[in-house]
């Protein structure tokens, strides 16, 4: 079993590397930029997969950290003129904000629906705030926040060792896709540690974890903070292929992330990545049709999944794969027997 798992892992990495290398070769520039947006949002989905799927923390406002990451990067990059420190700030600030928010929520013993409502409210407050930042009064250094329009001209990433060389869209694709792969494996490693196992146990039964002597607030705070930092990374990548605006904090973004995770498979890491990419591609396709509202189709898909495939895509694919694998193995066994009776 362990052998087949390693085999699947190895194959997955090979396929992922092939995709990373081939996308800029095979697709037009416009499609490469779109693919980079999908990947940056997949990082956001991965952050919620970790926080909700494994930590059991239903954060309905994960886009708050995504937006903060994007804005921090844009403001700092405009002021500093390069991307080295701004990237660090853009990861640190959402992480600190998540830690502060998490402290009040977890130490206040707020759980379940209250936590969802509070995190969503925070995201919507930020949405309102950044919408109201039009005019010269709202400038941080050289960066004007721009109100509803956001910050249109965000400097792209540069080479860390040569600030004068800014990355082209194809190179930003390599960075984004490699980061997604890296963060996926970092998340897997994190979950396999003692810390990760305790986080999962808290999702399963918080009272029992406490009765065993684990201070569950600390574990939840840490995984929430890691999720915030990861959403910040997603914001940086997004700012590099679109631009930052208050819609990053909007209800529709917050709801979409939840849908990606649910459809991809709650309690898995690869499922939400798959769910986010497939649904974004579908939304983009549907957006070209005049006669159909994409939100209607997305709603219908969500209903179908909740009713018929409640565990999501990844567990379904895994089950089908396992069935096919064991079917082939049985066939191979019979064939060997037939050749060498």
């Amino acid at each position, binding site marked *: 079993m362990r052998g087949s798992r390693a085999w699947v892992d190895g194959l997955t990495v090979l396929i992922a590397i092939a995709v990373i290398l081939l996308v800029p070769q095979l697709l037009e520039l416009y499609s490469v930029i779109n693919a980079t947006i999908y990947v940056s949002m997949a990082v956001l989905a991965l952050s919620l997969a970790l926080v909700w799927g494994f930590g059991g923390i239903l954060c309905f406002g994960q886009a708050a950290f995504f937006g903060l990451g994007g804005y921090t990067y844009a403001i700092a990059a405009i002021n500093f003129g390069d991307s080295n420190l701004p990237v660090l700030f853009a990861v640190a600030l959402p992480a600190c904000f998540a830690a502060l928010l998490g402290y009040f929520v977890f130490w206040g013993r707020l759980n379940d629906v209250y936590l969802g409502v509070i995190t969503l409210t925070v995201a919507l407050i930020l949405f309102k705030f950044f919408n109201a930042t039009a005019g010269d009064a709202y400038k941080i250094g050289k960066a004007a926040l721009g109100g509803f329009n956001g910050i249109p001209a965000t400097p792209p990433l540069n080479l860390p060792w040569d600030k004068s060389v800014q990355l082209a869209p194809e190179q930003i694709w390599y960075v984004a896709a490699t980061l997604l792969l890296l963060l996926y494996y970092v998340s897997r490693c994190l979950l396999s540690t*003692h810390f990760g*196992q*305790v986080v*999962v*146990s808290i*999702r*399963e*039964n918080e*009272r*029992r*974890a*406490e*009765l*065993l*002597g*684990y*201070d*569950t607030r600390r574990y939840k705070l840490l995984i929430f903070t890691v999720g915030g930092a990861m959403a910040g990374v997603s914001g940086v990548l997004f700012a590099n292929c679109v631009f930052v605006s208050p819609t990053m904090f909007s209800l529709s973004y917050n709801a979409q992330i939840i849908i990606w995770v649910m459809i991809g498979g709650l309690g898995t890491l690869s499922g939400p990545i798959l769910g986010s990419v497939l649904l974004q591609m579908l939304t983009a396709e549907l957006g070209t049709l005049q006669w159909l509202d994409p939100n209607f189709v997305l709603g219908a898909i969500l209903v179908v999944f909740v009713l018929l495939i409640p565990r999501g895509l990844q567990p379904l694919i895994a089950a089908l794969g396992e069935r096919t694998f064991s079917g082939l193995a049985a066939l191979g066994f019979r064939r060997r027997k037939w050749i060498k009776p």
Partner: protein
Amino acid sequence: MRFGGVEVLRGIDFTVRRRELRCVIGPNGAGKSTLFKCLTGQLTPSAGNILFKGEPIVGLPSFDIAQRGVGIKTQVPSLFDGLTVRQNVWLAARRLLDEAAALATTHSLMERVGIDMIAEAAVGRLAHGQRQLVELAMVVAADPDLILLDEPAAGMTKDEVGRLAELVRELSGEHSIIVVEHDMQFIGMIATTVTVLHQGQILMEDEVGRVMTDPRVRSVYLGKLKVG
């Protein structure tokens, strides 16, 4: 302990010595589970004090009390249902031990309790009696000084009850244990001193033989005695 106008525990005063095995019995609603919830920090008594190893623990959070050495097997087994038996026991052991020691403890405890055959089963799919044993193994894996067992024999077969009694007697040589139980046969197998709770008060505290033949205890269980 008071819930609104209802006083669930009143004037409870008893001491459990190091490595003592104490049974607490009483009819439904006597306050036995509430007593355990107060001892583990799940409820804070409205008045009074609880000392553990000489230090007050009232008002401390559950994890803090657990870290000081109090472990509980709850009335309805409280487990990590989506995880395997091995993972459940390992999580309990790993808080105090390093990776290798936790694995060794997990393995030996599963064998000792008799759940090694179901080590890779998800605990959410186990029968009630097996779940009781998994929770017991988890509690022991955390190596507490005081073990609280709330109705450990419920849902077990006669053979399982016999093995459990043997295990509890063994454990009493290593830990202080308080057992809340209805099954008087099980009490007879393990008990030395028994405390009888009735309507939130201590009705009597004595050696097991005397408690079982006491007319007041008999009438409490048959529902005749009224305590004012």
